[in-house]
């Protein structure tokens, strides 16, 4: 039954590519030793070499040096490490201003994903001041507002490369340039864009970048953080001296191999194919009455479509689609574990109703062109049926 299922929630998790699994398997069954120094035993040296090769592959996709890339357990850890690591390194305790003159102010956008949002809130409880930048109706940060928000106390700006729900891309090059000019560190969460949307750290003045494997048909439980050479960061996990002494713990070597293999398998041709499906789906969905696109019409993730339908609620849409064999996501409060409506839709000026009726479709490698019409047909019927029983929109 699951074989027939059309999975359109690739921004939540993706099916592992069998080639990734094939590349990982020997590192569970044969080269399972921990990565040792060059003076260790041969299986450990072999493991170390494989790990470093994986590191180089992923670093190359960012045009970074291998020693600037740290493996983590995923993007949640990476963003926690970036925000809290910098805060601990630079955040002067009250009455204890460091020679750098830096203080306890952090800037993020109000539509960041939870790892950044809640790391910032956790730091707020520890006495940091956080500015939550507004975004426009498409979800874009206003560069003048960013410039004005930076103070001599500011230590870090964290603004995502692409939004997790509505797919809007930020102008990270311009944001980075402002931060560089003001002498403030810049972190970007590229969880949803890497490596489909090019981010070249030689061109973009960014100091920290969060990435993950699980959204590009790689394994869950492995991600990474790009750390530009010289970026002050307090060691995140204490223990051994792994990951350039920034994150203790035995390296997840099969995961790292899987991540690198997944990165290599992403091609511009494939991304163009996803974008084509996205565009056709958006076109179909906007033909449904009382629908509107969430996010920017062009500056958006190549595989993300997000549309709100009036007079109907997302969890009901989701369940009906599930019964018909389609998996999608919604920003409705009823669907979320917290019972809170999407902070992203509210952040772009939408009301609760728009959040409750929002549906996110995200494409991946295993989607076929015919999935577009299939899901568009199904959701048109579902919306019509739910509007039939809705007290809204009848007058």
């Amino acid at each position, binding site marked *: 039954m699951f074989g027939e299922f059309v999975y359109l929630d690739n921004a939540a998790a993706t099916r592992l590519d069998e080639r990734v699994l094939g590349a990982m398997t020997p590192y569970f069954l044969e080269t399972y030793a921990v990565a040792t120094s060059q003076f260790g035993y041969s299986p450990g040296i072999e493991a170390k070499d494989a790990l470093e090769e994986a590191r180089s592959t992923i670093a190359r996709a960012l045009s970074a040096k291998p020693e600037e890339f740290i493996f983590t357990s995923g993007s949640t850890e990476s963003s926690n490490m970036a925000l809290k690591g910098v805060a601990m390194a630079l955040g002067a305790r009250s009455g204890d201003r460091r020679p750098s003159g830096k203080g306890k102010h952090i800037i993020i956008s109000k539509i960041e994903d939870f790892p950044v949002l809640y790391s910032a809130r956790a730091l707020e409880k520890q006495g940091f001041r956080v500015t939550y930048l507004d975004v426009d109706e498409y979800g874009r940060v206003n560069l003048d507002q960013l410039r004005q928000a930076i103070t001599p106390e500011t230590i870090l700006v964290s603004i995502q490369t692409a939004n997790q729900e509505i797919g809007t891309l930020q102008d990270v090059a311009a944001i980075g340039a402002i931060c560089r000019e003001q002498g403030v560190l810049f972190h970007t969460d590229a969880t949803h864009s890497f490596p489909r949307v090019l981010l070249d750290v030689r061109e973009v003045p960014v100091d920290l970048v969060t990435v993950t494997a699980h959204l590009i048909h790689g394994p869950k439980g492995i991600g990474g953080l790009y750390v530009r050479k010289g970026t002050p960061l307090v060691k995140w996990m204490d223990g051994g001296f792994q990951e350039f002494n920034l994150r203790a713990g035995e390296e997840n070597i099969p995961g790292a191999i899987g991540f690198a293999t997944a990165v290599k398998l992403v091609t511009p041709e494939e991304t163009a194919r996803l974008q084509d499906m996205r565009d056709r789906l958006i076109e179909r969905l906007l033909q449904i009455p009382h629908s509107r696109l969430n996010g920017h019409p062009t500056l958006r993730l190549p595989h993300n479509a997000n549309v709100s339908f009036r007079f109907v609620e997302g969890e*009901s849409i989701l369940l009906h689609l599930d019964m018909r064999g389609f998996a999608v996501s919604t920003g409705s409060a009823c669907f979320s574990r917290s019972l809170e409506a999407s902070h992203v839709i509210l952040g772009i000026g939408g009301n609760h109703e728009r959040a409750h009726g929002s549906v996110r479709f995200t494409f991946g490698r295993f989607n076929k062109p015919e999935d577009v019409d299939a899901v568009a047909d199904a959701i048109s019927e579902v919306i019509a049926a739910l509007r039939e*029983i809705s*007290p809204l929109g009848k007058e």
Partner: protein
Amino acid sequence: MPLPYSEIVMEHFRNPRNVGRIENPDGKAVEGSPACGDMVAVYLAVDPDSQRITDVKFESYGCASNIATGSIITELAKGKTLEEAKSITWKQASEALGGLPPIKTHCSVLAVDGLRAAIQNYRERHGLVKERVPTTVEVVRKRLKHVMNPMTGLDLVRTKIVRDIEVSGGKVRVAIDLPADHQFAANIREEILEKIEHLWDVDEVVIEFTE
């Protein structure tokens, strides 16, 4: 296929009973709002002699548990007297559905409240409110707890936008902390009227927007 709800809930969600409206209903009520994520409208046709519910219909904007509870509550209420129908509890509805996830209590309680409010609406419209509890500021406040503030999804009282309530000689004045040209002002006004103007000793309702 693993499902978040019981088979009965899914069945009512797929094929809800008694969906729609009744033209010129004898009683009707709307509970919840689009902002809070769930909304249910209940319409009643009542035989005046026997006080029995001859027909009941509902409409739902909401999640599966809201739709399924609306469906089951109309099945349970049909043919019952108003007195019997009024005493149907959320627990009975939930049991009839084979159980509901605790996190969905709010959405399903709304349907039960909708039925009760529709019965109350019938009684008020037909001058049948026997208790004749005089309308006080507290009565009005309690009713405003059933009017949603669309900006937050919580009710007017909880979100502290009720600035003042006055009750004197059949006249109720409610002051709401919102500009009169606010996008939700008209919506809120209508919902407040629906909740208060049918009270037996209320002749006039004045809603003021102040900010």
